[in-house]
């Protein structure tokens, strides 16, 4: 959870017509859920809402050869009646452009997994 708070861009993975799809998204943590914003009539809104999805964010320092990734899996729901998530969240989500009124999608932290990658040492066992 602490690592999730440090990033603002992640990726959503879902199964669309039984094929895996991955899309980058801006997100915030809100009420212990990952919350995304989707334009009203897009693949994102249509495919994500009410589907079981994966959400991933990560940070890698390629020079140092280390980093981490966190994945959240859960059933995405539309946050109905929520027009604003507060100024801090708006500043993160706000510049994602699209026509019409945006919809907010929440992903509960039903299953959270993470891995931290440390510099590899040839032949080492950790």
């Amino acid at each position, binding site marked *: 959870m602490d690592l999730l708070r440090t990033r*603002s*861009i992640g*990726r959503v*993975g*879902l*199964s669309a017509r*039984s*094929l*895996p*799809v*991955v*899309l*980058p998204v801006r997100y915030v943590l809100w009420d212990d859920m990952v919350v995304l914003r989707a*334009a009203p009539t897009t693949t994102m809104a249509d495919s994500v809402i009410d589907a*079981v*999805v*994966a*959400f*991933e964010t*990560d940070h*890698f320092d*390629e020079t140092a*050869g*280390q*980093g981490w*990734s966190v*994945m959240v*899996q859960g059933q995405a729901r539309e946050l109905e009646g929520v027009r604003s998530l507060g100024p801090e969240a708006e500043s993160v989500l*706000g*510049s*994602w*452009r*699209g*026509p019409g009124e945006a919809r907010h999608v929440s992903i509960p932290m039903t299953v959270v997994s993470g891995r931290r*990658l*440390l*510099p*590899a040492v*040839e*032949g*080492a*066992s*950790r």
Partner: protein
Amino acid sequence: MTAPHDAGPSDDAVTDWSGLEVLGVDECRRLLAASAVGRVAFVHDGSPSILPVNFAMDGAAIVFRTGVGSKLAAAVLRRPVGFEVDSWNRWNHTGWSVVATGVADEVVDPDDVARLAELPVRPWTRPDLRSHWVRITVEELTGRRIRNAP
């Protein structure tokens, strides 16, 4: 290749409905080739998953290393997968993403394995266990770039 939903305003760059610049296939390939970390999206037991991997391009295919009997290998081999790379500047809200879809298989031809061993793919964890190569044969490649928001 997927066409944008509709053409944007007459501009040098093609934009999609939301104003994102639609990247051409050559630009997508260039950005893929310049990236070292991507994310594999797959469906395992009905649940979508996303895992980051170190990868390289072998011609037009995406290749990465994995361990024998790893969960990732079991989940992706001979199955359709998604693959994503991106880069963002959080301060000025610019960035790009490239999304590929294709089918994953294991590289078994010894000549192919020998060639891949020369690629600059260095697994960050347990290189001793990551002796197998997975190849994603790209079937669809799309990309978007976001410039400064108005």
